[in-house]
């Protein structure tokens, strides 16, 4: 693998993304809003008491962390890779002496840095205004880092293999829409997973979406402990393996039958 070339590409992509900052700030703002709405709704619902062990400040802390993790793991490949394939931009990438995954990785890193320039100050401001209460369980910090890294990798490869379906059908949009809804319901956005009613909670535990966003936050806040923690990690690692295998299979089959259109 050509790492020097890969690094140069990452730098170039980052610089070109920075030129569009206001566009990406706007995007990041849009992604922040749904968790922010549920932050307000649940902290109003908690009022002076608590719901499922979470007080008002607890909900604020949970959702502010969720906003950060959601931004860090957001799978922008969902739309960028699909468009590149559809509009024939894959030609250029395939001709380079670099694996096309470097292109994706470089826009991934560039994008995340630009989003973070916006999201971290804004979250800090919200934290000052809304007074979160965060008690980090002993040892939870150590479990948080691997959970977060696996969440990112899972969401990245999951988004990538879904986007690669664009090799076959010009519109994988229906699947992406379904995935967005499931993410909204099952990944701790509409409510922390532990507050979901039984059937939906079981679904959230089994499907991959929770492990892309809310699992690291739950780990850090001590909402999953002991056996549940190890089971969570097992599900997360299992889904990550599935996502990587799907990615490899779809990529190999897709490139073979890829034919560009347009010029």
């Amino acid at each position, binding site marked *: 693998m050509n790492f020097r070339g890969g690094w140069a590409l990452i730098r170039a992509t980052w610089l070109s993304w920075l030129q569009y900052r206001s566009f990406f700030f*706007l995007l990041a703002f849009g992604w922040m*809003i749904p968790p922010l*709405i549920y932050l307000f*709704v649940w902290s*109003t619902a908690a009022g002076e008491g608590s719901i499922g062990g979470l007080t008002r400040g607890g909900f604020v802390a949970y959702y502010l962390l969720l906003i950060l993790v959601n931004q860090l793991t957001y799978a922008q490949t969902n739309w960028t890779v699909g468009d590149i394939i559809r509009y024939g931009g894959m030609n250029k990438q395939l001709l380079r002496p670099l694996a096309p995954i470097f292109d994706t990785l470089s826009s991934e890193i560039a994008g995340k840095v630009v989003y973070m320039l916006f999201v971290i100050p804004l979250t800090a401001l919200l934290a000052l205004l809304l007074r979160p209460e965060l008690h980090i369980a002993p040892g939870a910090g150590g479990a948080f880092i691997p959970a977060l890294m696996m969440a990112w990798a899972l969401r990245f490869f999951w988004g990538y293999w879904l986007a690669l379906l664009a090799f076959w059908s010009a*519109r994988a949009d229906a699947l992406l829409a379904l995935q967005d809804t499931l993410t909204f319901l099952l990944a701790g956005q*509409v*409510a922390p997973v532990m*507050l979901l009613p039984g059937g939906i909670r079981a679904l959230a535990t089994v499907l991959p979406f929770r492990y892309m966003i809310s699992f690291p936050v739950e780990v850090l806040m001590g909402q999953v402990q002991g056996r549940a923690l190890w089971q969570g990690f097992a599900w997360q690692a299992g889904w990550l393996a599935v996502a990587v295998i799907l990615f490899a299979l779809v990529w190999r089959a897709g490139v073979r039958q890829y034919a560009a259109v347009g010029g």
Partner: protein
Amino acid sequence: MLYLRLIRRFIAISIHEMAAYRSNFWISVLNALLELGAGVLALVILFEQVETLNGWTLPGVLALLGVYLTLGALRALFIGPSLEALAGMDGEVWSGKLDFTLVRPVDVQFLASFRTWRPLKLLDLALGLGVLFIAVAQLGHSLTFADVLSFVIVLAAGLLILYAILLAFAGLVFWSPGFLFTWLFDAFFQMARYPVGFYPGWLRLVLTWVIPVAVMTTIPAQALLGDLSPLSLLSSLLVALIFLAGATAIFLTGLRRYASASS
């Protein structure tokens, strides 16, 4: 009436255009159902945990969701796509194609507001109205004629405000082409899913007086619940008129700044 005839023509043309993309039909059905399902489930999950929230019960917020979906559907039916064609990404202001619109012997604001239709969004409209009817049936009190009449009036006022804000943002594009003002608004409009009473005080003020999404959904829902004060009804009409006048002024002033663009 020339304008009504023109609208009929615009709709007919849009239907012809739509017929070319048949697979879009199913995707649009899926999207509408997913949005409805996620919206209803989000409310059910919340009201599993609390009985009432600041005076609102499940049927009440369901009625509000119905108002939100109905307004969103009307927006997506014609206001959104028409203004998007003017001021959106690659819109006419951006590309300079507005020249051709300006030379037509019809009022520009009318053309900008009614030109493009998305007939598939009638399905969303039907679903939104369906939620409204179910919610009203669940409320378990019979509506008087006065209730229904005031509901229709405040809903119309809400629609006017929505239109006015989108028109004003379309007008702002003349000053700052390329800035996607509607994206910013979309973020705030999502907050209209819940009664303003669910948000903290400072946000409630913003949502009532600065970006009055409260007037769009909370007040119509209150009308259905039968606790709408005459003052709310009058002020919502007043706000609608002020916004409409202001937005028209912004749009027309912006239009005068337009200096075309070329490639």
